[in-house]
């Protein structure tokens, strides 16, 4: 009896972090803090954009990669977050950190609301409804001009906290890094929790999930809600970053960018989403002088990923460094 007990681990195994692992973590943290030292304003702006899109992609990946549902409401969540934050700051006079509260609540609710039709609608139907929802939101930004200032766009005041103003790109970077790090860390933990595993189970086989006693309905609504929340917060950062949000910022083009980042980075991989954001956010800045090139490059990359590398960049990386495989796929 006592022998048997000794062989059974009490709960999940937690390996003590070795000195080496702490060194690696420290190195990453230092690297993340460094960019403002070396960049000029424009480069820093692009780096900030990468942070925002990394967060967007992590949020989108929850629905697309982990829950495995084809839903196109992501640009809508992004816009809802940006506009809620903007409206709270402009019309309610809240500072940025306080505006994050209504932003979080509204985008969480928007996510859950989109999750509800997902209970009834499968596959294409869900894709169509969510696509329509994005366009509907864009229409309401244009026509709700009392709050949103219509097509001319809503000017966003700079973020402040305790008398300090995040005015320059460098200052915004540290703010964004903090918010994004917390959100990505939380997402990473949720995905490894019971609820996160039910998302993956639903992706693999919804009926079997239900048969195992996990509710697909709860799984879907929570996944959509969390996805909406993360993307909505990213929208708030986006509003702060560009200083003026217009309905056109949340069109199908925006959706393509999100979609391409997640797909090319790798479905169902947080590291992949971050990689995708790094690779693809810089691209539009390079290609902006050639109309249409951005779409051509992104779609060719997407086609390449769909045909030849189903796991995206993350899969390629794992192929090159087999040591990573264990680290990424381990529980």
């Amino acid at each position: 009896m006592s022998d048997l007990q000794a062989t059974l681990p009490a709960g999940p195994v937690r390996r003590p972090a070795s000195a080496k692992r702490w060194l690696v973590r420290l190195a990453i943290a230092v690297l993340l803090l460094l960019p403002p030292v070396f960049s000029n304003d424009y480069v820093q702006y692009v780096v900030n954009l990468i942070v925002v899109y990394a967060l967007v992609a992590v949020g989108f990946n929850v629905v697309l990669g982990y829950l495995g549902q084809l839903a196109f409401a992501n640009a809508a969540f992004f816009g809802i977050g940006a506009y809620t934050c903007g409206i709270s700051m402009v019309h309610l006079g809240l500072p940025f950190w306080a505006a994050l509260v209504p932003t979080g609540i509204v985008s969480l609710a928007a996510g859950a609301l989109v999750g509800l039709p997902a209970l009834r609608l499968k596959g294409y139907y869900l894709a169509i409804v969510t696509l329509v929802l994005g366009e509907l939101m864009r229409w309401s930004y244009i026509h709700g001009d009392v709050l949103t200032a219509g097509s001319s766009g809503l000017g966003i005041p700079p973020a402040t906290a305790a008398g300090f103003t995040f005015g320059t790109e460098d200052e915004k970077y540290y703010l964004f890094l903090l918010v994004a790090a917390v959100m990505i860390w939380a997402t990473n933990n949720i995905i490894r929790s019971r609820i996160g595993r039910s998302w993956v189970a639903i992706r693999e086989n919804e009926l079997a999930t239900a048969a195992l006693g996990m509710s697909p309905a709860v799984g879907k609504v929570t996944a959509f809600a969390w996805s909406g929340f993360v993307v909505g917060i990213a929208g708030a950062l986006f509003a702060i970053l560009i200083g003026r949000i217009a309905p056109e910022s949340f069109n199908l083009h925006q959706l393509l960018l999100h979609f391409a980042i997640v797909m090319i980075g790798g479905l169902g991989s947080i590291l992949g989403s971050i990689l995708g954001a790094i690779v693809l956010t810089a691209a539009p800045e390079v290609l902006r002088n050639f109309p249409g090139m951005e779409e051509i490059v992104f779609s060719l990359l997407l086609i390449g990923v769909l045909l030849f590398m189903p796991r995206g960049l993350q899969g390629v990386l794992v192929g090159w460094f087999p040591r990573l495989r264990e680290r990424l796929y381990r529980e």
Partner: protein
Amino acid sequence: MFVQLILSGVAQGSIYALVALGMTALFRATTIVNFGHGEFFMGGAFVLYVMINVVGLPFLPGALLAIVVMFLVGMTIERVLIRPMGLAPHIALAMMTVAFSFLFRGIARAFWGREVLPMPAVFSFPPIDVAGVIITTQDLLITGMTLFFVVLFFIFFQRTNLGRIAQAASANPRGASLVGINVNLFHGTMWGVAAGLGAIAGILVAPITLLYPDMGALILIKAFAAMTLGGFGNLGGAVVGGLLIGILEQLSGGYLSTALIDIFAYLVIIAVLLIRPAGLFGIRESQRV
């Protein structure tokens, strides 16, 4: 005013019906929902523009050539992008159609930039005045051509031998290939036909609308609305749904608010999918366990 709105609604709805018919036929044949179908519509209009303004052809040969070009584009897509994916899950196939839709949009934008192109007017007959109701020639042409193609399409599918083969191949691809039907060729042809139907719709509206690379996105949603309203996958339903959407859109614009024209189709999609996902003529799907 009521009759006038109905008439322009029918003309508008004919376009939706034509696009939705192509999408439904493709869906029935291959079980793929084509998110790139709007780009067939846009492609038809743009190729026609090139044929007339760059090559210098007259309208009719230009239009025929544009349809042929788009038919070949459709077949190429099937061969190069869809067939290699084999038995990939539906979501991956839908993603592929999203990818090529943006590819076409990008190509159009690369050539035309951010311009909005007017098409030279092709027909300039005076509008016909029937007891106070004004009918434009273009509307008549659109409605007439749509009717013609829809009837042609149904005769082909229901009455000809080739149509029966097509039905067999879409009902049971494996069985069809066992009795010697070339299912791959059939799928390729259906992609071609779908692209051709989309192109015809684009060609019909080209003379009365402005051309821009994003024109397909809007029509795609309208066609989705037509398909959902008529019952997803129902050929006749797609046509009826398209006409209904066109008419209701005009009526809501005329009597309620013009801003509603833009989102009427969106509201129809959401309402139908939430209340009765099978649409008007669809059969409720039951899940196989």
